[in-house]
């Protein structure tokens, strides 16, 4: 069973249906027990880094993620759900005295604004695939759908795949039980569904 972590508003329906195309049972839940016990946990996310962290903190989502990883249970972060896995995010703090927001911190490093005149980075882009990537196996040359203005730019994890918009950023990270995609596989057509299938196949 796959659990999609519900920690606020947004379009979780697409994610639910996309993961269900694999034939797995999928639940959208904020119940910590269900989220902890599921074969795979998806951390989705739309909106700003800090409001996502508020939603995560309200259901103690950081503990769920950490506990799962300790028990060697897979977690997949998507878009802002990837970004909040990092230690810090600068979204909304760049032009002030404020220090960056804290994330869940299971990946080291900071999520920072892309240096490019037109944001968000919105649309289909390609990925420079790490040969070790399991998630991108068989779909190395495909495009995926991105919507974001911030990204992680330093390598973390065992396998790193990169994309370029203005500058190079982490597109997919895979580190044992913890994986994350900056793009939206649930919105990336057949390529996205193939990635979801790869992840579920690894559970």
């Amino acid at each position, binding site marked *: 069973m796959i659990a999609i972590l519900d920690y606020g508003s947004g379009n979780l*329906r697409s994610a639910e*249906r996309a993961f269900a195309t694999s034939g797995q049972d999928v639940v959208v839940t904020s119940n910590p027990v269900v989220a902890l016990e599921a074969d795979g946990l998806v951390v989705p996310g739309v*909106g700003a880094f800090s409001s996502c962290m508020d939603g995560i903190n309200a259901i103690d989502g950081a503990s769920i993620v950490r506990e799962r990883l300790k028990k060697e249970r897979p977690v997949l972060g998507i878009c802002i759900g990837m970004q909040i896995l990092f230690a810090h995010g600068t979204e909304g703090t760049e032009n002030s005295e404020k220090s960056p927001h804290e994330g869940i911190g299971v990946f080291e490093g900071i999520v920072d604004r892309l240096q490019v005149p*037109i944001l*968000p980075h919105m649309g289909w*882009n390609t990925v420079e695939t790490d040969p070790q990537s399991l998630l991108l196996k068989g779909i190395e040359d495909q*495009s995926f759908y991105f*919507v974001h203005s911030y990204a992680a730019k330093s390598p973390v994890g065992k396998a790193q795949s990169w994309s370029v918009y203005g500058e190079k950023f982490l597109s997919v990270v895979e580190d044992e039980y913890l994986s994350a995609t900056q793009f939206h596989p649930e919105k990336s057509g057949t390529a996205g*569904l193939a990635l979801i299938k790869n992840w579920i196949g690894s559970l």
Partner: protein
Amino acid sequence: MSLSIRIIPCLDVTDGRVVKGVNFTNLVDAGDPVEMASLYGREGADELTFLDISASSSGRETTLEIVRKTAEQVFIPLTVGGGIRSVSDVDKLLRAGADKVSINTSAIARPELIAEIADRFGSQVLVLSVDARRARTESGFEVTTHGGRESSGIDALKWVEKACQLGVGEILLNSMDADGTRAGYDIGMITAVREVAKVPLIASGGAGALSDFAAALDAGADALLAASVFHFGTHRIGDVKTYLNKHNYPVRSVVVT
């Protein structure tokens, strides 16, 4: 490696049906928006847009149902516009399975709505639809309302600048002069708006020949929206992409199944 341009078919729906005539022989029900959306998805549309022109609240409920059904089977981004007046309207659409909403008249009436939606859901969900035409305003372009029938008196470029500051994630620029003519996009208008818009720009209105799509991209559009040329089968989405690819514009290739 680069970001592809986007081709976006737009479907006008009312009370659960596609309004403008659709000329596809391989559809069981050419008026069914879900089936149309699914077909366009298979043909390589990079996103889909539904414009809800229902006048009644029951029509809007039907649209929510269409969004639900579409989100269950079409896994590309879906934008829904028409009749959105509040944060709660946006919430309903996102929960039904829309990825983005487009607002127009309600933002002109109350610009704070832009900031309210962006604060709650993030800028990326919000497309500002600007129905503009050539007029004697400061920039030479003005914003219209009611589908281009009424003047708002607002300068189009100033409005785009303000909307970017308030937090829109994207601009959908509809030329009311070019709309329906199939004589090409309003290139001057796209160029002018590109200068001031700090967010992605979708050009709409006037698509006819294949070279029209390329001209709009040259003027600075990031994405191209069209309705009738696709619905009437003048061009298939694949034709547009093949043409653009041949002329060295980055497109997403799709294996048609």
